[in-house]
């Protein structure tokens, strides 16, 4: 019961950061989603020790561990778009796969190359 109370309290803190993120987004007319701004803010506040990790950790852990629960209602919405993948639409699956392969290979190779180069400089 105590844990449930903590989860709710911590989630309220997260909602607060989300609202501030939304406020910043609408005030400055930014393209970056308010939720992402809220996340960056929370990370900065945690790093600067302005807020303690114990104020959010139970709520954050519960949400991150059960992230899928929160987007199920939206994914169910796919039932109104089932025809997108019919016929030519199947090509979209192939496009997503090829693109994923490129992202994985190129991002990984870039960072690997950078870290090895740095290691060589130190030798």
């Amino acid at each position, binding site marked *: 019961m105590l844990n449930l109370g903590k989860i709710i309290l911590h*989630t309220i803190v*997260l*909602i607060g950061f*989300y609202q501030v*993120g939304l406020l910043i987004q609408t005030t400055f007319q930014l*393209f*970056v*989603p*308010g*939720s*992402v701004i*809220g*996340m*960056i803010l*929370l*990370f900065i506040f*945690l790093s600067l020790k302005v807020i303690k*990790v114990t104020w959010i*950790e139970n709520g*954050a852990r519960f*949400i991150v561990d*059960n*992230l*899928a*629960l*929160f*987007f*199920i*209602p*939206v*994914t*169910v*919405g*796919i*039932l109104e*778009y089932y025809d997108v993948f019919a016929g030519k639409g199947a*090509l*979209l699956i192939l*496009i*997503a*796969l*090829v*693109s*994923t*392969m*490129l*992202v*994985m*290979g*190129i*991002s*990984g*190779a*870039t*960072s*690997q190359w*950078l*870290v*090895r180069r*740095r290691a060589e400089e130190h030798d």
Partner: protein
Amino acid sequence: MIDFLIGIAAIIGTCIAYVFSVRVHRKWNVTITAPVIISTVLIICVLLIFRIPYETYMLGGEWINHLLGPAVVALAYPLYNQRNTLKKLLVPLIVGTTMGALVGISSGVLMARWAGFEETIIYALTPKSVTTPVAMAVTETLGGIIPLAAVFVMFAGIGGVMIHNLVFRLFRLDHYLGRGVGMGSASHAIGTATLMEDSQLEGSVSTVAMVMSAVVVSIISPALISLLL
């Protein structure tokens, strides 16, 4: 009043479907049994069998939706936990995930445009490499079909897990940093969970890369899209 009761029923139903699918996933533990897939299929079946329109289900679904924003905010927590990895490898992490974001957005958008798909579909494909709640927010900003964005994210996650051994060999990713950044940038949480099973080190890099690439993709998507289309 009746709307309220329907809403409550939808929320409880969604939670039951989720808890059930988590159990199934624990038992079989293959990528294709990811809880979101099983829950979604289950709920769609129930809606179709009982002829319940999606709008009716969303009377409750809407309430769960309200927690999506705070769920993105919560990602600061795993990032904070990995702050030492982040500090130590800051430059390779930033450059790697930014490259990944550029390649992911432009390759997806260009191929889809070349194949002649509508813009609302292309906008849903754009953020496929990032975690679902962020991808949906990005697609919303761009004006694409939001549920479709979630499906593309699933393709990138599950597809990435299926082909990751091949990609690791093809691009000679033999360093834990390369593997972690590659998986986290391309296949978000699904990929990260898979890496975590093999190596804690690769998994923690993947966690950082996943959150970073969510930030980078949401920042550069609108500008990059207007260049490409």
